[in-house]
């Protein structure tokens, strides 16, 4: 799994590529938790994720809850059909703000 972070205005865009599973989700968790206090909004691009399991989804839920505590925004965009399927199976999609594109996620569309 590869993770990169870039600044766009007062937001941070986190890009993830590869598989998010029990072995790799701690690294994603670390990056997202480090990014949250340093930006008004964190937007996670899921487009290049080939695979995500429940530990990955649990990580996103934890980050969402921390963003609410810190009064920051945590949004998702670029869900592939495979990732969408896992969200459907876990019934948690409704708790997230999900967008098609980065521009929509950042409110610059």
């Amino acid at each position, binding site marked *: 799994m590869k993770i990169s972070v870039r600044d766009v205005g007062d937001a941070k865009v986190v890009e993830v590529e590869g598989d998010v*599973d029990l072995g790799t989700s701690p690294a994603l968790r670390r990056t997202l938790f480090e990014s949250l206090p340093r930006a008004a909004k964190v937007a996670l691009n899921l487009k290049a994720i080939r695979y995500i399991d*429940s530990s990955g989804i649990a990580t996103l839920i934890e980050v969402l809850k921390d963003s609410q505590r810190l009064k920051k925004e945590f949004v998702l965009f670029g869900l592939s059909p495979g990732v969408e399927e*896992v969200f459907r199976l876990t019934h948690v999609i409704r708790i997230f703000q999900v967008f098609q594109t980065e521009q929509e996620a950042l409110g610059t569309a």
Partner: protein
Amino acid sequence: MSDTPRRLRIKFEMPSDPRYLPVVRGAIGPLAAAIGWEESECRAITLAVDEALANVIRHAYHKRPDGLIELECLESADGLEIKLLDTGDAPEMSKICAREIGCDQPGGLGTHIIKEVMDSVSYEQSPDGNRFVARKLLRKTP
């Protein structure tokens, strides 16, 4: 030659180390496709098997990487059977699928995924260890 058709059986013996999970995932999808499921079902079956293995790593072996997990995947006349055996701590039955569906708690998602994807799931303790068996039926479209 026997009249009984030969069927595929795959057996893995893997350490309880998450770095081996992609290896197993790489085999389950093509197996499900060969049996006859379509792509999204193959992804779901792969996820269910991965979640079952991850649960053993997390809860039976508490993320210790030196435990042994035996995984057997059997093509059957009507679908697929998955069997797992481990010698770690037994699962707490009261915690399986105890999470409320759709809530915002991060834990307990894996067992819900397994239950949703597979047609039957059972957990039992045997003299050999903890056994997990899950079956998925292939529903042929007329």
